[in-house]
């Protein structure tokens, strides 16, 4: 066989593939007005139908980030308990993409929680654990040596630390988006979300009035987030790892469904001085104590399944 000819044919084939990629890729970014007008004119337009089937170009489902989760916990009166966190020594146990993604979420939540309570050594340790997970997942530059050095240099400056953590989370999630690995990004977020639930449910003491406790209220609020979690997982259900995580989340859903939340109409009221709007509404919750303890137990099982 003439090797030169084969080489040349392969190059031509590659050129065609690359050309197709360019044509389809560019098409999504720029549209020619004339072409669009022609297409529209050639259709019989039923305005009501268009309204009914109107599709939105981009839909985002946003879960609380590890940083937001930690802030919600602190605001609700949580205290710091390092024993609840996933030990950093466990990093060597995680070798699959799924376990590394889940524990990147778990460790960044632990990192955020430790930093909000000014736990300097734990903050550095959990940043290093997050770094190990990010490296394992091939996330380049999300957490490099420079990040650790900046963290150490500013360990007593909470604003800078928050900024570093926020940037770390953003670098990880955007890396997955840019590299078409949304499934991994979703698993990271679910890992962090479950860790937040685990910490919260374990910080609620046995003698607490479940009907009058801010931390319990924030745990119940996760029923609202649950639908977003499931929508996000559903978008990525062609991924095997996502399906197993979805099974876990559906187990939580079965318990959350036993909790009744009713909310009054929301009334926005803006303070003219601060320009801050308060969304005024009242929420009523019906939850049996056994439902709460069932939820706590299920969260513990799922979280241990993620981390052990």
């Amino acid at each position: 066989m003439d090797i030169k000819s084969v080489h040349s044919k392969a190059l031509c084939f590659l050129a065609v593939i690359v050309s197709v990629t360019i044509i389809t890729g560019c098409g999504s970014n720029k549209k020619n007005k004339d072409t669009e007008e022609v297409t529209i004119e050639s259709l019989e337009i039923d305005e009501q139908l268009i309204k009914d089937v109107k599709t939105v170009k981009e839909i985002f489902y946003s879960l609380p980030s590890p940083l937001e989760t930690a802030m919600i916990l602190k605001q609700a009166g949580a205290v710091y308990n390092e024993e609840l966190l996933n030990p950093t020594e466990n990093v060597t146990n995680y070798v699959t993409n799924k376990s590394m993604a889940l524990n990147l979420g778990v460790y960044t939540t632990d990192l955020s929680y430790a930093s909000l309570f000014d736990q300097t050594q734990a903050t550095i340790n959990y940043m290093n654990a997050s770094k190990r997970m990010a490296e394992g997942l091939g996330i380049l530059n999300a957490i490099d040596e420079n990040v650790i050095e900046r963290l150490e240099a500013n360990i007593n400056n909470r604003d800078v630390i928050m900024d570093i953590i926020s940037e770390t989370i953003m670098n990880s999630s955007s890396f997955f988006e840019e590299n078409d690995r949304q499934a991994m990004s979703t698993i990271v977020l679910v890992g962090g979300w479950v860790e937040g639930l685990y910490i919260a449910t374990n910080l609620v003491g046995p003698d607490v009035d479940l009907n009058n406790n801010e931390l319990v209220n924030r745990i119940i609020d996760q029923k609202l987030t649950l639908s977003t979690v499931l929508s996000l997982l559903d978008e990525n259900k062609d991924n095997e790892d996502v399906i197993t995580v979805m099974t876990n989340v559906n187990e939580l859903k079965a318990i959350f469904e036993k909790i009744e939340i009713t909310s009054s109409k929301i009334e926005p009221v803006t303070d003219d001085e601060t320009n801050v709007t308060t969304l005024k509404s009242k929420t009523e919750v019906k939850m049996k104590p056994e439902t709460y303890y069932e939820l706590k137990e299920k969260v513990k099982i799922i979280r241990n399944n993620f981390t052990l």
Partner: protein
Amino acid sequence: MKKIYQILIVLTVLALIPFQGNAQCKSFAKKVCKLELTPYIHDGNFNAAILTEGEDAELYKTFYAGQNYRIYICGSDALPEIEFQVLDVNRNVLYDNRKSDYSRIWDFKLESSQQLIISLRVKNSEEETDELVSGCVAIMFGIKENAD
């Protein structure tokens, strides 16, 4: 043969442009948009897309009682105005930036946690041009502990 290599190099560079667009979107969100959230802390989530004039996007998120939030809709300078609304789950409008001169920032807090929808649309350009303008649009959230 040399010509094929040359064509391939040019085509490969062109094929990478969309990915570069994504990377630029992140860089834009990081360098330009984040600053506008101050004194709120960026939550770290990355919600950004390349949108063309006339296109819309929606974001679903739960906001929690006890937190102060800032929503910042950040769009590249080349884009026309961006309309944005905040809706409850029944799609009742809670905020509409058309009533605030297309402000890109909205600060709010909640008495009880709620799932809200952020709905945005890039307006059509008023200038007559042959091509529609596209650009990066990022929906950024800032959070702040409630001092009350």
